């Protein structure tokens, strides 16, 4: 979605945009662009933290330590993708095991996975099996049980 809606950070670095966060960008081609928007002072009870925005809008929630960060990250009805930025293998390993999401990234964006790996989430972010990879066979299979009496 960011690729569609927003001018990417690399483009902004190249000086193509002078608008401010949260503003619509008017460009020559017929599309809908929004300047990437970051909120701070966000509380996990706010709607912008609890609902899926599906656009280049992110919020920063201040926490006191790693344990609280994991608890806040998991305190959501959704669980498609989660990420951690760390140089600690201990925290990276713990987060991969304990993040309640279908995909976990370490020091990488939470969007985008290769086509050969399973794609999908937990809780309200997924239904049924995984797309892509070996699990796609199940995802695209309609199982039917049939009996015939001769």
């Amino acid at each position: 979605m960011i690729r569609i809606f927003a001018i990417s950070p690399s483009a902004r670095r190249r000086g193509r945009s002078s608008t401010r966060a949260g503003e619509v960008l008017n460009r020559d081609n017929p599309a809908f662009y929004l300047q990437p928007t970051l909120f701070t002072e966000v509380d996990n009870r706010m709607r912008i933290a609890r609902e899926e925005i599906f656009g280049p809008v992110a919020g920063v929630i201040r926490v006191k330590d790693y344990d609280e960060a994991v608890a806040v990250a998991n305190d959501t009805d959704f669980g498609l993708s989660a990420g951690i930025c760390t140089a600690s293998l201990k925290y990276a390993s713990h987060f991969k095991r304990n993040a309640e999401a279908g995909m976990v990234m370490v020091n990488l964006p939470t969007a985008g996975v290769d086509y050969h790996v399973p794609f999908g989430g937990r809780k309200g972010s997924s239904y049924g099996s995984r797309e892509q990879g070996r699990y796609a066979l199940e995802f695209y299979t309609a199982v039917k049980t049939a009996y015939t009496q001769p």
Partner: protein
Amino acid sequence: MLARLLWSLPAGGVLAVQMPDNTNEPALMLMEKVELKASTHVGPVVDRSQLDQDLRYIALGKEEGAKLH
């Protein structure tokens, strides 16, 4: 190296390779360049309602007391 790893696999074995972050690779940079061209039509996957939804959330965030950057 990949060939050596593949040959070392037992029968039926699987080799999984995780590629590093590739957002700065030429193919993706070219894709971004095309997206920004005036002649590029993004298509029907995005419509005005999605942009309006984002704007409503931005307004909501301000109302809820979050600080915009």
